[in-house]
């Protein structure tokens, strides 16, 4: 069965990922407690994006999946970003 070939992520790796995620959680709390004006959103989203990357690639094993699936996941985020961007073409120029 195809499962036999699938990748096994070691406990140690998973633990390390959790530490990284926790680090970024505290980072995002401390960064957003300063008022960086419009940069706050950017920074918060950037950090959330990094955390999302770790969850997707290690917890969800995307790093070890085939290329097609990885491309598809990327496309979903691109599609969503495009939709948001285009909606803002309306709202930013009203």
């Amino acid at each position: 069965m195809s499962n036999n070939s699938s990748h096994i992520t070691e406990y140690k790796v998973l633990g390390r990922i959790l530490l990284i995620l926790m680090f970024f959680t505290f980072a995002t709390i401390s960064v957003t407690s300063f008022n960086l004006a419009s940069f706050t959103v950017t920074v918060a989203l950037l950090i959330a994006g990094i955390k999302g990357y770790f969850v997707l690639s290690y917890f969800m094993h995307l790093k070890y999946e085939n290329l097609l699936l990885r491309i598809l996941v990327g496309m979903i985020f691109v599609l969503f970003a495009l939709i948001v961007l285009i909606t803002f073409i309306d709202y930013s120029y009203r």
Partner: protein
Amino acid sequence: MMSEKVTHIEEHRDDAASKLGMWLFIFTELLLFGGLFLVYSIYRAQYPANFHEASLELSVTIGAVNTIVLLFSSMTIAMALTAMQKNNKKLALRLILVTLLMALVFLVNKYFEWGAKFHHGLYPGSDLMALLERGHLLYFSLYFFMTGLHAFHIIVGMILLIVVYFKVKNGSIHFEKYFLLENGALYWHLVDLIWIFLFPLMYLIT
């Protein structure tokens, strides 16, 4: 060839197919929440100051605790899969239980958080809500709807994991056939993933 004609395809099993199916389902969930994030971003861009003021009503501590709880549960369910792959059934069962426990902690936290809002008269359709400024009103509408929908997904995820738990226990999920556990875990990570974005957008607005 012959026997295939008699036994119907229902017994047919393809792990790669069901995993791809789960991922596609995750895409739909991402876009479901995506619609809400779109609404959120439009209204936040229109009322940045109001959103900041309204977000001060939320406790960053509770939010942060819940974030850690979910991240931790995400790790434990990933570990449960690793344990299953290594044919350690006992550990896998325990890790699923820990995950479920964490989910419960999350919901209890959420219950108290929502309860406090309700206690202050802040809930959809309340008299107080009607008096709020537009931006505040939109923020709380989004807060209740988004966290509510997320909590609903937590509950669905818990049900899935409970089913998986019993299937591991009675041996229908085992170390050579564990795609149900894998799919349950994927769903759980999705719930975590959405919270990763909800947390800064709801609790940390300046």
